[in-house]
């Protein structure tokens, strides 16, 4: 398993870190079958979703999700940056356009009751202003950090999801910036990296690799924590993929034990 790279976060450091080693790691159908068999061995009567956060928190159930400026900012910010790339005059305008579109979709009944659009549509102007500010701040930070990245990169349209075949399991990889077709994936988080930031990144690496059509792993997976001024990265090697897959399966085991204990109580 290759070592974690930990660096002070600057645009230059990020631009250098996304340039991973010239190795190509590909997962085959045999790997997919093995992963599915491992998850199927951890029987479950309900669908499980596993991601970096569940690995880092050892399968602890998350608090019930609710929309807030903090939970909405990433999606709005990424959308604003995509709009900026396609002609929006400023980040703030990009955020406004995205909010307007989501609210319009909600008004036309094209979004569900728990969707971001429906939540935004129910906000008063002061609340909406805070959401706009939070999203614009997040987008400004992301735009500045990515400013030194060379070559072909874009803001991810969505996180990567991989449904493990006949195992009632979905893996999710958080991704914000994608460099090249398979060069690097950057994901940005608030707060500071936890002691298990490495296993979290490996879990993201596994989900992103298995979710890609051709099974090629990104050469680098980079976690960025602007609040802490740090970045943590790892190489897309087979060793890291194996370690990440083991962590995900272990998390499924722990999660199942928690469910069984809760059901028994």
């Amino acid at each position, binding site marked *: 398993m290759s070592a974690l790279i930990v660096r002070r976060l600057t645009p230059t450091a990020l631009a250098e870190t996304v340039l991973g080693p010239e190795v190509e790691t590909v997962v085959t159908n045999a790997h997919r079958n093995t992963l599915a068999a491992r998850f199927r061995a951890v029987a479950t009567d309900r669908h499980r979703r596993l991601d970096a956060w569940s690995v880092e928190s050892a399968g602890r159930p998350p608090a019930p999700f609710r929309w807030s400026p903090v939970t909405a900012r990433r999606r709005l910010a990424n959308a604003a940056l995509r709009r900026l790339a396609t002609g929006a005059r400023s980040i*703030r305008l990009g955020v406004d356009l995205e909010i307007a579109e989501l609210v319009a979709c909600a008004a036309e009944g094209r979004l569900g009751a728990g969707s971001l659009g429906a939540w935004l549509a129910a906000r008063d102007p*002061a609340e909406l202003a805070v959401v706009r500010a939070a999203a614009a701040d997040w987008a400004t930070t992301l735009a*500045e950090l990515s400013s030194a990245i060379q070559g072909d990169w874009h803001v991810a349209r969505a996180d990567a999801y991989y449904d493990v075949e006949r195992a009632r399991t979905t893996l999710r990889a958080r991704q914000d910036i994608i460099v090249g077709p398979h060069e690097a994936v950057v994901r940005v988080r608030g707060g500071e990296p936890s002691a298990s930031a490495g296993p979290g990144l490996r879990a993201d690496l596994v989900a992103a690799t298995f979710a890609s059509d051709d099974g090629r792993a990104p050469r680098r997976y980079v976690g960025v924590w602007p609040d802490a001024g740090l970045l943590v990265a790892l190489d897309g090697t087979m060793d890291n993929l194996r370690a990440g897959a083991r962590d995900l399966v272990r998390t499924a085991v722990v999660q199942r034990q928690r469910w069984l204990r809760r059901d028994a109580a």
Partner: protein
Amino acid sequence: MPSVILASPTSLLEALRGDPSRRPPRDRATAAGLRAVLEDGLFEISHGQTRPAPLVIGPDHVTGGADVVDINRATYGRLRGTLVAQLVRLYVAGYRPRDPVDAAVRAWQIDGPSAELAAAFTVLDDDSRSRLATDVAAHAGSLAQVLREAPAGWAVRSAVRTRLRLGGGTIVLRDVVDLVVGVEHQATASVVLVDVTTAPIGERTDAALRFHALTHTLRTSATPLRAATFSTATGELASCEVDYALLDRAVRELLDTIGARWTP
């Protein structure tokens, strides 16, 4: 010492940004030196001993604000400060509410208030709530005179958080700066930190300002151009250029604070 000037009714941010052609080159070397001095100082305090939980240090600890004995007064002050901080976000985002107090409360509540402050707000009696509303409205008036929506190119960010670990994780520095203006990684230093306080400007606000400059430098590895505090109580603006002397003093103040609070 920061220079104190009475804020004119022009834009606060415009005044603080100053003339872009006179900015010094960005200082990328100081942050590493400060980290080394801090780590050496921490080792002298801790002698390599660890703690069961990290010692969390914020601007209140450095300024002595965390040692205020009157808990009711401290909570009232924090509530007022929190609501005014929300107004800063709203004004910079270009939203000018007719009822600033109501808008600030709504913005605060949706932003996920701390359980402690939310509980304190809920149990306020009618008199205290009216007093808080009058107080916040007065501060909002002062703020509205000088704070306008900033141009998009200025890269304004509000409520910028910092959370840094030092001494192998035994110390956590936490900080929130109300406004950060400017692009952090340019050839010239261009970032201005603005702290908005509801207290009059004094020794405490100066120490907080130095703490903000230090945490920003450690987080971004680049020294900001300027740090400033705007008092909504008096309309005064205290501003200073961030240089090595200021950051060195901030390091010494931080080490003194940690030394006074350190227990293995």
